[in-house]
């Protein structure tokens, strides 16, 4: 490394760099903006993720609603057990169920009903308007009271004091809930209401409703050790498959992994932005070095070593990095305040901005690595500027410098960056694959440019002046074609990939309201009620399409004798199938909507053995094979059956789809209820009202409400994705500008000479166009290919959708990018329109 730098030398470098920045800051804007935008993106994602996690951590007890939660499913815990629990601390009972809430003369609303006792909530507070509504709930007034959430209020235009009917019983609206602490337990988007458990018992509403669950929460007495009690309770229920215990850390697990997944995605976008910004930095630096060609040569003639000159420029970039990263960090830190206003109040989340030197250093370190990686090849090009040029008056443009030593440094730095980043994320494998794909893409485009030069050299040349100039520019020894190809290629590829993914998401949204879907879903239809219900509906609309399926509750115990918890991790995509209560159904013949993809249907009529048909994707995710032995707990009894086949289930059609279907002959003995779907040209509101009036226990769920909610969520995702891709596009464009800038410094002189020699303007313009068209056409094919592969991977594997290709969209993006990039090139080369000889003579 040569001699060490001393203090006066460092201070000289500092002063020189400061002077240089202040005199040529205009030339550094590309580096500053790209670095700033990408660092900001990084800082935003880190900061939001951190404050969300902190908020959730701080509130994990409130989110669970107690120190421990015990779920006993449909059956309540025995009085015995409850008494034992009561000795350990304060206990709060809750029943959750789905039911219809009706306002006289209005359409009923399917509601998530929470039945709570006066202990509720054990942690945190329930916020209502009017403020005292929560207390009123537990006063034993003549008329029972219900608290509703805003969604119900809006749909039914309810006011405090209005009457509503729930399961045939009249309630008065006592107030509107704005938030409850244990929101993690319920659907945030849906309609929900709270009633008093004493009244629920008094009017004996237990028989109604659907999806009924009993929950118990315990606040452990302060005089007892939490850990001991928790162990005691857990051992109390071991072996009892129907009871499940949850701790505060479990309650936040799903929320946290959702946040992690989203922030992982954002992180990847941010790091792509960083790397693209890196390419921009590399280009800008190179053009910077070339613009200072003479200055660098003069410094060398004065006896400055390359190292000192490199240090000056490197120092300038580091200063820019420090400034932009500090700015980006502070904006990022303050972003939770902005996020607070965007998060619905019902979540009860209040994010706090947290300053920490460590998280600043985290961002600055990633920025430093990227800057190092991308400035090394540019700065080392200084080595190849020779002072000799001052005697000969010829300044060869220099290009990125890759020596063995450089490559060695680069490999190490890239490895550090990748490891550092991957270690911070949850889905490490995907992140690794992503990085690999990204760097592979860079290499692909480098290869493409080499290929282009190779083929151009071999193809015969046209005797056209413009072509000759273009040809010479591309195949020249220090051609710009590789840099142009890589920058444009990466930019275009990213643009295409993100657009493809976003487009697939959008298609998904517009297709999520399919014509085949039913209008209304009926659940909790009693076996004996089914015929009456069917008659009633058919009387209202003889043309109606009506379908009923039997249904029973079951839970997953094991695959081939191995307990399911040990096989399936909570972040498995299909873990929902094996968690908690599942509903299963049965069929004797395969359904047309669910084609069998593997295995065979079963022999009908076998009553003493259970056969299982699984959703093919779930089977894949859970690692099941045909012939596996699966144990289900059906109504408290463990039953083992054999997997016979996998079906392709499309949950989007919202007809009655079950992940698990068993053979009818075996299921005939089980107690069950029905679910039904209905599709009618008749007013479904009217059918729904009549049904709910006649059968207060049946819940009728209108599909369009669910769908509109689903599409609301998807739309938000779409907007977020579009917004993020916009940032990437902006950075991509800046990079393209930087590539053009590199060109400009190279070309200025050449164009001037051409002009002086009398090559006319149209010829130069034609040559420029031709050169661009040749490079762009070559890279388009590869950009589309990489984008197709990348987006296919994301859409099919990560989002779990069916990938489709949109050729019109592709064409538009390819054309638009071409036009924008070319206009930028022309603007950047505008000096060819009026070449000024003056600055060249005046030594500017």
């Amino acid at each position, binding site marked *: 490394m040569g001699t060490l730098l001393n203090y006066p030398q460092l201070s000289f470098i500092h002063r020189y760099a400061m*002077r240089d920045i202040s005199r040529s800051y205009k030339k550094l804007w590309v580096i500053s903006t790209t670095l700033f935008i990408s660092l900001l993106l990084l800082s935003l994602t880190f900061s939001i993720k951190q404050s969300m996690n902190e908020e959730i951590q701080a509130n994990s007890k409130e989110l669970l609603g107690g120190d421990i939660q015990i779920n006993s499913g449909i059956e309540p815990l025995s009085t015995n057990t409850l008494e034992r629990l009561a000795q350990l601390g304060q206990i709060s009972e809750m029943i959750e169920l789905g039911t219809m809430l009706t306002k006289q003369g209005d359409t009923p609303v399917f509601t998530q009903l929470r039945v709570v006792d006066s202990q509720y909530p054990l942690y945190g507070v329930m916020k209502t308007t009017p403020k005292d509504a929560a207390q009123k709930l537990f006063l034993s007034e003549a008329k029972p009271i219900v608290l509703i959430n805003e969604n119900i209020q809006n749909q039914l235009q309810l006011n405090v004091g209005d009457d509503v009917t729930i399961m045939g019983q009249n309630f008065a609206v006592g107030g509107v809930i704005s938030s409850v602490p244990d929101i993690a337990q319920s659907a945030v988007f849906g309609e929900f209401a709270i009633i008093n458990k004493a009244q629920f018992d008094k009017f004996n509403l237990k028989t109604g409703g659907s999806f009924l669950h009993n929950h118990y929460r315990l606040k452990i007495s302060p005089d007892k050790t939490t850990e001991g009690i928790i162990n005691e309770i857990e051992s109390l229920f071991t072996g009892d498959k129907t009871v499940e215990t949850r701790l505060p850390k479990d309650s936040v697990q799903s929320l946290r992994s959702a946040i992690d997944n989203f922030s992982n995605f954002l992180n990847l976008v941010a790091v792509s932005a960083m790397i693209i910004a890196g390419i921009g930095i590399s280009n800008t630096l190179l053009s910077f070095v070339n613009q200072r060609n003479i200055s660098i040569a003069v410094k060398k*003639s*004065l*006896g400055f*070593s390359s190292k000192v000159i490199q240090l000056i420029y490197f120092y300038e970039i580091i200063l820019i990095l420090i400034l932009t990263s500090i700015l980006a960090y502070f904006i990022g830190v303050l972003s939770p305040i902005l996020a607070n206003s965007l998060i619905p109040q019902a979540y009860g989340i209040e994010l706090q901005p947290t300053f920490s030197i460590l998280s600043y250093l985290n961002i600055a370190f990633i920025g430093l690595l990227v800057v190092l990686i991308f400035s090394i090849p540019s700065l080392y090009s200084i080595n190849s500027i020779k002072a000799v040029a*001052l*005697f*000969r*008056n010829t300044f060869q443009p220099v290009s990125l410098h890759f020596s063995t030593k450089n490559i060695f440094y680069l490999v190490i730095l890239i490895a550090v960056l990748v490891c550092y980043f991957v270690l911070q994320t949850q889905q490490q494998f995907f992140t690794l694959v992503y990085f690999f794909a990204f760097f592979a893409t860079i290499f692909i485009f480098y290869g493409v440019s080499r290929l282009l030069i190779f083929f151009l050299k071999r193809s015969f040349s046209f005797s056209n002046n413009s072509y000759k100039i273009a040809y010479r520019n591309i195949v020249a020894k220090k051609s710009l074609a590789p840099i142009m190809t890589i920058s444009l290629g990466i930019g275009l590829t990213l643009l295409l990939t993100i657009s493809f993914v976003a487009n697939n998401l959008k298609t998904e949204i517009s297709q999520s309201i399919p014509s085949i879907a039913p209008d209304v879903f009926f659940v909790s239809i009693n076996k004996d009620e089914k015929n009456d219900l069917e008659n009633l509906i058919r009387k209202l609309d003889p043309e109606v399409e009506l379908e009923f399926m039997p249904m029973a509750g079951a839970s997953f115990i094991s695959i081939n004798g191995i307990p399911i918890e040990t096989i399936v991790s909570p972040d498995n995509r299909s873990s929902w199938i094996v968690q908690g209560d599942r509903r299963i159904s049965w069929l004797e013949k395969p359904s047309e909507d669910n084609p069998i993809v593997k295995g065979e249907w079963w022999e009908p009529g076998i009553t003493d053995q259970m056969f299982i048909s699984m959703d093919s994707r779930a089977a894949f995710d859970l690692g099941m094979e045909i012939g596996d032995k699966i144990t289900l707990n059906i109504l408290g009894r463990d039953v083992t059956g054999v997997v016979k086949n996998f079906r392709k289930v499309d949950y989007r059609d919202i007809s009655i789809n079950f992940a698990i279907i068993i053979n009818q002959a075996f299921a005939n003995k089980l107690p069950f209820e029905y679910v039904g779907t209905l599709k009618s040209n008749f007013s479904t509101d009217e059918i729904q009202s009549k049904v709910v009036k006649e059968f207060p226990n049946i819940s009728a769920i209108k599909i369009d409400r669910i769908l509109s909610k689903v599409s609301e969520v998807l739309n938000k995702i779409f907007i977020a994705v579009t917004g993020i891709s916009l940032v990437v596009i902006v950075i991509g464009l800046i990079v393209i500008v930087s590539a053009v800038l590199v060109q400009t410094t190279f070309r200025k002189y050449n164009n001037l000479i051409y002009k002086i020699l009398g090559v006319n303007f149209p010829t130069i313009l034609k040559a420029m166009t031709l050169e661009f068209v040749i490079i762009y056409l070559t890279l388009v094919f590869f950009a589309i290919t990489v984008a197709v592969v990348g987006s296919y991977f994301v859409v099919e594997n990560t989002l779990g959708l069916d990938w489709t290709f949109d050729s019109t969209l592709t064409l538009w993006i390819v054309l638009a990018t071409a036009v924008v990039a070319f206009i930028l090139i022309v603007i950047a080369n505008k000096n060819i329109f009026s070449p000024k000889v003056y600055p060249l003579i005046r030594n500017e």
Partner: protein
Amino acid sequence: MVFEEMSAAIEFSNVSLEYGLGNELIKVLKCISFSVNSDETVSIVGPSGSGKTSIIMLAAGLEKSTDGSIKIYDQEITNLKENDLSQIRRQNIGIVFQSFYLIPNLTAIENVLLSLEANQKYDLDNEAKELLGEFGLSHRINHLPSELSGGEQQRVAIARALINKPKIILADEPTGNLDGENSKIMMKLLLDYTKKSKTSLVLVTHDTSLAQRCDRIIELNDGNIA
């Protein structure tokens, strides 16, 4: 014997310089030898393409000779690495180019200071001002090169070469871009300085009247000393 101990500032012994151009081998310098004493001014003349500039580049350590030995104050420089060459250059040699080559975004004084800063000499603004004053540029100290005339630019360039008190000055047609009047001013500045500080000067020029003002003339012809 005091005189024998006194070493030559520059010593070329059997130096050759060749460039390979495709299959062709261009012999630029053909085994030339000469030396320049430490207080001697020497001019190099010869037709275009005879290798004058090449000699300057070799002496400055900016070009590698194909063969032979080049010594600067007895130190062999032909086998040195770039860093060591940089050091010899900044400590011993001042270069003046035909096309001045001032750094465009530095002012006159900053351009001059740069050559001190290369030697890690800082905060010598007064000396730089003084020298620029001697060169009649006191009123142009804070001007950018683009705001200076050609003659002024060349005087700044010479100040830049001299400020560091080099023992050797190499000048490649320093007057080539100047008119007769400016050429004379320039030549006077250079010769006054070299005489005053006993510095050696190697001056490449086409102008025979300028050449004759040096102590000795070396004539080059087709890579040979005539």
